């Protein structure tokens, strides 16, 4: 291990090895093996039928759309699509699992061997994808606070999931969170998953272990569950890595186990040991025939893929001359990237548009809890406003006020500037008058400036701006001040 690699690890002489299993709920209209709706938030058990309730004698019929979605995702993550794959039963007892088994894929998953790219601290890292497979979701148990009853809601039972399994290529909680963000970004680009972590459309388990830097063999891992936000993924891993280091530093051994993230307490807690782990008794699902995936179908899906975040990022860098960081952020959401490109095509200078989006646009959207699709300002309006800065009609500073007003009212920049009288004063005489007034009132400051206190230039600028309500052309103002004080 090279010296600089050692310095790069966050944990001194240890490094963390992390692999993520992401469950993404596919945005199909109907469930994986029956025709019931997948809509979220309906009344308990209102979206069920004999098949997803696990009645005696029912049989699954595979949802073709789900297969297409999984293939789409596999292709987007550079996986190869297995020409022959099949479902398997994963057997365990739980009230929210009506059949007593989950129909998943085991030996022969649909997608294998891909990767995605993440950007961490300015460096692009490739994270391997081991496999992507399809499976049906379980229902939900609802426990009555008082009383001895629990209820089972099977609306979610049978909803199609993709399990995206990464290689243990992730080295830090930050990378893990970036990986999750990228997965979310890709599935949203594809329209195969809404990526909503709060509603559980995107869920994540992590396998994490530590080992001394330079050691090839993997340490004993813990599986972490119940991390339902990017922040929790990062915090849970951070906690768990430190916990494991402490165990080892104290002379102990990490035990293989499943641990649950407790977000309120900010800790992970042991859920079950390896010995208590389920034996799922996987075997091929006899109710479904093996799936043969035609090369034509794969080619057709491939041809229909949209430009994906990584490709778009690369293009933004080369086409618009943006820094990687800007490009990564702008391409994280398809709609955001489209907004950006639209603003540029309407004449906005690429880097300026990027700065405005990452600054004011994002700030105002966040404050008003809006998505880019709901942004009251059209991309062309931003481009037009940027032109007003360029031609000196308004200053960059005034532009922020103008933009805020545009955001509130939806009006064009020009209208706002006119209505509010925000046009920049570029009349040399008018600015000179204001400068003279300020200098006359600030005799002692003028003296100090002339004695060499250069920093006071800012003070004079501020005073003149105040007097002109910020409208003085900054360039002219600077020139005049230097002339008068010089």
């Amino acid at each position: 291990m090279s010296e600089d690699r050692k310095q790069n690890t966050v944990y001194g002489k240890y490094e963390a090895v992390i692999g993520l299993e992401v469950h993404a709920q596919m945005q199909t209209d109907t469930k994986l093996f029956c025709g019931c709706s997948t809509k979220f938030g309906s009344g308990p058990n209102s979206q069920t039928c004999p098949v997803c309730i696990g009645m005696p004698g029912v049989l699954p019929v595979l949802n073709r759309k789900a297969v297409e979605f999984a293939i789409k995702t596999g292709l987007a993550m550079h996986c190869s699509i297995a020409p022959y794959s099949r479902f398997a039963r994963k057997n365990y007892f739980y009230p929210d699992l009506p059949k007593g088994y989950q129909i998943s894929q085991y030996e022969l998953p649909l997608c294998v061997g891909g990767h995605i790219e993440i950007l961490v601290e300015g460096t692009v890292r490739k994270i391997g994808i081991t496999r992507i497979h399809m499976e049906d979701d379980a229902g939900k148990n609802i426990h009555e606070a008082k009383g001895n009853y629990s209820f089972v809601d099977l609306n979610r039972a049978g909803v199609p999931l993709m399990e995206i399994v990464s290689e243990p290529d992730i080295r830090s909680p930050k990378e893990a969170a970036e990986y999750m963000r990228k997965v979310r970004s890709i599935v949203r680009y594809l329209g195969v998953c809404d990526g909503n972590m709060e509603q559980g459309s995107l869920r994540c388990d992590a396998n994490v272990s530590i080992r001394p830097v330079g050691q090839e063999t993997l340490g004993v891992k813990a599986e972490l569950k119940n991390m339902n936000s990017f922040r929790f993924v990062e915090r849970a891993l951070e906690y768990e890595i430190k916990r494991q280091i402490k165990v080892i530093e104290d002379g102990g051994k990490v035990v293989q186990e499943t641990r649950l993230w407790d977000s309120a307490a900010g800790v992970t807690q042991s859920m079950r040991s390896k010995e208590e782990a389920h034996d799922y008794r996987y075997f091929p699902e006899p109710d479904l025939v093996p799936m043969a995936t035609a090369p034509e179908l794969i080619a057709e899906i491939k041809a229909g893929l949209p430009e994906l975040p990584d490709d778009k990022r690369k293009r933004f860098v080369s086409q618009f001359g943006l820094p990687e960081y800007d490009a990564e952020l702008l391409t994280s959401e398809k709609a955001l990237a489209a907004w950006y490109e639209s603003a540029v095509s309407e004449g906005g200078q690429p880097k300026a548009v990027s700065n405005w989006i990452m600054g004011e646009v994002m700030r105002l959207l966040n404050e008003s809890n809006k998505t880019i699709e709901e942004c009251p300002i059209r991309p062309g309006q931003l481009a037009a406003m940027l032109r007003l800065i360029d031609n000196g009609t308004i200053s960059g500073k005034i532009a922020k006020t103008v933009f805020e007003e545009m955001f509130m009212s939806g009006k064009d920049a020009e209208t706002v500037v006119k209505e509010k009288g925000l046009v920049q004063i570029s009349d040399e005489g008018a600015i000179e008058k204001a400068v003279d007034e300020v200098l006359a009132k600030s005799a002692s400051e003028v003296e100090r400036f002339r004695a060499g206190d250069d920093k006071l230039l800012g003070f004079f600028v501020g005073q003149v701006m105040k007097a002109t309500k910020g409208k003085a052309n900054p360039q002219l103002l600077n020139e005049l001040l230097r002339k008068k004080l010089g």
Partner: protein
Amino acid sequence: MSLHHSTRRGTPYLGCPGARRKGGLKLKLNELTVSDVRKLIDNREITARDVIDDTYKRIDEVEDRVKAFITLTRDDAYRMADNAGDTIKSGKSSLLAGVPIAVKDNMCTKGVLTTCASKMLYNFVPPYESTVTGRLSAQNYVLVGKTNLDEFAMGSSTENSSFHTTKNPWNLECVPGGSSGGSAAAVAADECIAALGSDTGGSIRQPASLCGVVGLKPTYGRVSRYGLVAFASSLDQIGPITKNVTDAAIIMNAIGGHDPSDSTSAPLELPDFALSLGQDIKGLKIGIPKEYFVEGMNEDVEASVRAAIRKLESLGAVIVEVSLPHTGYAIATYYLLATSEASSNLARYDGVKYGFRADGKDLLDMYMNTRAQGFGPEVKRRIMLGTYALSAGYYDAYYKKAQQVRTLIKQDFDKAFTQADVIITPTSPSAAFRIGEKATDPLQMYLSDIFTISINLAGVPAMSLPCGFTKDNLPVGLQIIGKHFDEQTIFKVAYAYEQSTDWHTRRPKL
């Protein structure tokens, strides 16, 4: 022999149409075949109501002794008969209009109790209809009732039913075979015109053999399993149990064919099986597997089957010896695969959603009490066997190995069928055995399926039809095995044989 093919009993009604009404002949309509009923109803000589009347008269007379049914659906039956009657009055008809059919109690019938002969489902009323009964309904059949079986179709005698043991109509002290013992006994005792059974390792053919009726296990994938309560999904198949070969063809025409609700049902066009009846079998090659005529077979059974082979030869068939070398592994293979699938298929009976639930102090306790009290000993034995075979560390040695052997067994048949058009064997090594005789010895019981199990493993179709009687006057069955999706050749051979013998016209005295 000069019997007209369409009457099972040789009752000469066709010589004098309408004889029953006008001539006063005591023709009991429940004794008729499907094709008889069809003709008489369509000719307006009898009504659907007449048929169900006679059927229930018979049930009232003998069911106490035979105990073929778990549930009798008298009210539904009369309603369905009247509907069929209306259809016919309106000038239309359909394959099964007004034909009383009994259905094994492991096929879901909407609104009608479906128990699988298990305490676990003692109160289960399905909110949906199985594909097969839906297809029977589309042909205006009349549901007589739901017949007894070994619990979840696991057994060869109906002694594993949680409710009662069905008796063999030929000798009430003997078992009817199983697991479709109720359906076979009901047909043999004329408590219905025809019945449906299901066959995982012989559960249609063995009881058909023991009760002296015709039973067909179609090719895996020929008939939809949707609504058949699963025992072993890769082996289960529904088929007809009837009084003669013609009726089996008619029922197959009604229930067969692709079903989008069953992904394992074959997307093939369904042939008209009635067209296979009456075709010449001259030059047709019949394979006799040497491994099936082994020591330990009942001598009367062997004699009957050998006589049947000679009969077919006399009809022009060519007899060739074939080999199915992996036959000896069939039972072991079957009891690994079938139990593995069963252990998973029966996991849904957990007391949470429907059926039986026992109390418990917590969830695990409730699960354990429910399954301990809800399942009978044979079902538990198989769940445990299957759970073990699929367990980590044993999977490769048991389940996976068994799958490999299954492939070899299938290849045996593929190879044998390059030399023969059909293969003939006995259906069961013995005739009906006495109630209780094998009940305490599961291995002996498993051996009663020794000739039928390989067929399910290979997925090929096979029929059992009557071919004689033992000295004790118990029926013997002949098994005709066909190629994948070639039930037609089976029908051809079976019909030719049936037409040249009178075994199918004999009836038990009850």
